[in-house]
């Protein structure tokens, strides 16, 4: 089998697990999380980045080999997301940006309309735009038109660890959208990441489930393995599901044309 690389934004990655940087008891654990998970892409809320700090800046703990993915956490409108993206670029954070536009703090559900607007503006400016959205076909199509590099549907409300609640909708996106589908938010267990990958998702992004585990490094490793297992299961072409038992030795095998 040829090497199965994850292509995103014109780059190729060995890992299909993206990790986050929020909620850790100590940012110094981040390099070990990256190593244990095998992840090569890491997202950071720009609002947390403090380039003026002489100590304790989250950026200090991001391994050099990781693809840095600043996000627009805190943006409530397309305009704010665009400003944050431009600010990130001006600060030397590169041209990748994960768009988060959220104005409902209870469920933290993304605003698809504002996200699409920000995506269109930033894609035209040359950003590699990864929008976090609801698992909605129409929103996803608008993001394709807007120039997104991937579509990142939520599995459940962000930080909820509730798992792949949007499974059927994600399945539709996988079938219908030609861009990489990265399941982002809500995944709480490695088995759920595995399930998303088995379905054909291209990658998963996990933060809370790793950061709030009693042993984040071990959990990161478990997620890395789960995403890999799910991907290999998908590539292997799982057998069809049936409602009833299906004998491996057919009962009508004696009926022969000969």
């Amino acid at each position, binding site marked *: 089998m040829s090497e199965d690389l994850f292509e995103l934004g014109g780059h190729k990655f060995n890992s299909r697990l993206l990790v986050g940087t929020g*909620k850790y008891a100590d940012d110094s654990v981040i390099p070990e999380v990256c190593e244990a998970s095998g992840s090569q892409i890491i997202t950071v809320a720009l609002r947390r980045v403090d380039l003026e700090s002489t100590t304790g800046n989250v950026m200090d703990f991001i391994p050099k080999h990781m693809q840095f993915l600043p996000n627009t956490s*805190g943006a409530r409108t397309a*305009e704010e997301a665009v400003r*944050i993206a431009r600010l990130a670029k001006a600060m030397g954070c590169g041209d990748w940006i994960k768009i988060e536009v959220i104005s409902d703090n209870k469920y933290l559900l993304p605003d698809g309309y504002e996200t699409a607007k920000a995506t269109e503006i930033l894609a035209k400016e040359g950003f590699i735009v990864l929008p976090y959205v609801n698992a909605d076909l129409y929103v996803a199509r608008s993001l394709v038109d807007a120039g997104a590099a991937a579509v990142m549907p939520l599995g459940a409300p962000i930080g909820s660890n509730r798992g792949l609640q949007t499974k059927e909708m994600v399945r539709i996106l996988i079938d219908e959208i030609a861009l990489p589908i990265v399941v982002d938010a809500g995944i709480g267990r490695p088995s759920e990441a595995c399930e998303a990958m088995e379905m054909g998702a291209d990658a998963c992004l996990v933060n809370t489930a790793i950061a709030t585990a009693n042993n984040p490094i071990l959990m990161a490793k478990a997620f890395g393995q789960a995403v890999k297992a799910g991907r290999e299961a998908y590539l292997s072409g799982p057998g069809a599901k049936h409602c009833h038992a299906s004998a491996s030795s057919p009962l009508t095998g004696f009926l022969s044309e000969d």
Partner: protein
Amino acid sequence: MSFYPICTEYGAMPLTEKFAAVTAEDVKRAINAESPDADDFLAMISPAAVPFIEEMAQKANKLTIQYFGKTIQMFTPLYLSNYCTNRCIYCGFNTKNNIKREHLELKQVEEEAKAIAATGMKQLLILTGDARIKASPEYLQDCVKILSKYFPSVSIEIYAMDVEEYAALVKVGVDGMTMFQETYNEELYPTLHPAGPKKDFRYRLDAPERSCKGGMRVVNIGALLGLDDWRKDSLLTGLHAAYLQKKYPNVDIAVSLPRMRPHAGSFQPTSIASDRDMVQNMLALRIFLPRLGITVSTRENPEFREQILPLGVTKMSAGVSTEVGGHSQKGEKVGQFEISDGRSAEEMCAALKKHGYQPVFKDWQCLDEHYGESV
């Protein structure tokens, strides 16, 4: 609409009797409710919930870690002025108190900013007494323009304002406001606030909502525990927070749990909130409103502040001076109240890390012109 009708409705209820009528079964149901309601919250702060504090603590701990991780936001206050036109009988800034009144000139504001910024603090809370003539909205805007050069996040804890005044402060870079109702007991309120603009109970009660309308991102409310029965004030504080969360989903709502502290004056608390009461209050708030910010100030002592870390707190102050100009000028000054935890930012960080918590200094990025951004 306003929170006032709800406040009035609960004010008319026999709350002491309602608290006394709560059963152990009510408490268990409340702790395990999928979405706790007002009755559940009342049950969790009732005397019947006291035997369930550990059970509540376990749940509150899990919820806090899920929503916030093991992180604590750090901030420090800057007192700009202690001139005050109110006569709040429990406050050191009471206009009748014979203390040295001071007001920082803009040059002094910058000196204070530099001194605080040198400690690593990034989130600043500016405070004034209630004296518009000494701390006008325009003066505050000028201060914020200076402070924004040093701090990504600047919040206010000042007198109650109109929507337009809040909006003007948001425009120059203020992202949060704190407003203590002090007590939600409308009958008791005039006794505690005999004179001054703060005497207007309703205007103060609606100030957090006006700030939401003015565009604040973070709104922090609270009662001063000790002025009335803490259970009654805590109940109304939680309901006020729930009201604001529901009505303004784009605003982060937070609650502070300040207890009465010694101050320049002779007022003594009429209701003591013990450490256990304080913890019960915090746990109930966390379970009732899982994504609520909870602020604990240096009014509490170092040991207690460290012990409550896993129980719901999300924001703490450090390196605190409650004196005007107290960060850059040392001298015999009188603060608003005596603090209990005099640790520096550095010492507080070490304590948090010792307990497995990460101090977060910066969690907001104000998008303004000094970064050369324009849209």
